[in-house]
């Protein structure tokens, strides 16, 4: 299977760099997979789980929003925050969600919609963590 170059960078570090078979990205307008030779695209990312497939092995990374760029040089994901599944502190993640729920009251109008949307994304990550993503 053809491979392509993939860089996952967050402001604080280069989280992943190497040749991969496939990357599944949680886009704002729906999930999409990237294989070698994908057409050039720039897509915004919603908070979700990004799956990197190399030689039949899957690696899951939680990204909290960002941007994906596919060019002829490969795929670059600029993640706001990138945490690999192994590193994630579940208790802290749950705490963040609780905090967000709490702060919902302070928002209003369009900001409230954004906050709710973001919270939903976080919750869906949590759900995936506790069910499917576990194996």
């Amino acid at each position, binding site marked *: 299977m053809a491979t392509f170059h993939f860089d996952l960078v967050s*402001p604080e570090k280069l989280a992943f760099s190497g040749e991969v078979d496939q990357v599944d990205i949680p886009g704002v307008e729906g999930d999409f997979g990237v294989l070698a030779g994908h057409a050039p*695209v720039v897509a915004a990312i919603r908070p979700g789980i990004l799956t990197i497939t190399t030689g039949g092995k899957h690696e899951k990374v939680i990204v909290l929003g960002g941007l994906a760029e596919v060019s002829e040089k490969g795929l670059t994901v600029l993640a706001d925050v990138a945490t690999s599944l192994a590193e994630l502190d579940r208790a802290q993640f749950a705490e963040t969600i609780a905090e967000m729920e709490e702060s919902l009251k302070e928002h209003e109008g369009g900001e409230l919609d954004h906050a709710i949307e973001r919270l939903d994304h976080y919750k869906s990550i949590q759900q995936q963590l506790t069910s499917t993503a576990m194996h």
Partner: protein
Amino acid sequence: MASLKDMRVRIASTKATQKITKAMQMVAASKLRRAQTAAEAARPYADKMSAVISNIASAAAGSPGAPALLAGTGRDQVHLLLVCTGERGLSGAFNSSIVRLARERAQSLMAQGKEVKFFCVGRKGYEQLRRLFDKQIVEHLDLRSVRQLGFVNAEDIAKKVLARFDNGEFDVCTLFYSRFRSVIAQIPTAQQVIPLVVEAGAAANTTSYDYEPEEDEILTRLLPRNLAVQIFRALLENNASFYGAQMSAMDNATRNAGEMIRKQTLVYNRTRQAQITKELIEIISGAEAV
């Protein structure tokens, strides 16, 4: 002439100072290594970000609906100078060279009849600028309580700047910081961040991308983020520069203290010998007189 005891005390105190500067130098050296790694780790993101932005921006800049962060407000009357300095001194010319650059820029802008406002990040820069431009400092932020610089700190600053921009408080924003080249070379730098300057070379690279969602929507998401990234990068570069400057300043101080100890010890020994000789002469001439 100082007595022997006074001189002994002075030598001891110089030695104590030398120990402190030596320790500070070593602490700065080890912190520098950490700061340097952090600054280097942040580079790929900032580079990729500006590459993606200039790609999209070069396409969007011409269109009439381009966001204000990219196209500007159409004026350049009010300038905001975002001056990032260190929280502590004892670092040679590090803080003052950033402040000097900002001050010169401010004075030349004011000479052209523009209005200048300051946003100070870091205590030292604030203290120096306050003497000259007290009324023009619109905001000042202390990072002293921050132990490990995180992206959230930069985001926080970016939010404040953006809020002011949205209120129409300024037209052009310039970021001042010290770029880290090596331990002995830190270059005070001014970088215009609002409106964004797209590098001319990048415009030639025209890959036609598909955009998801729409191009301008991505751009409106990306531009504020880019500001935070640039600030974050500036803060990290600054941090590395600070420790670099402190290290060489403390190295100098240690060497100077060594030199001083050598000179003082020489004078001390001479005086001691002169005194012994004098006492001997007194004893001998006393014995001869008898």
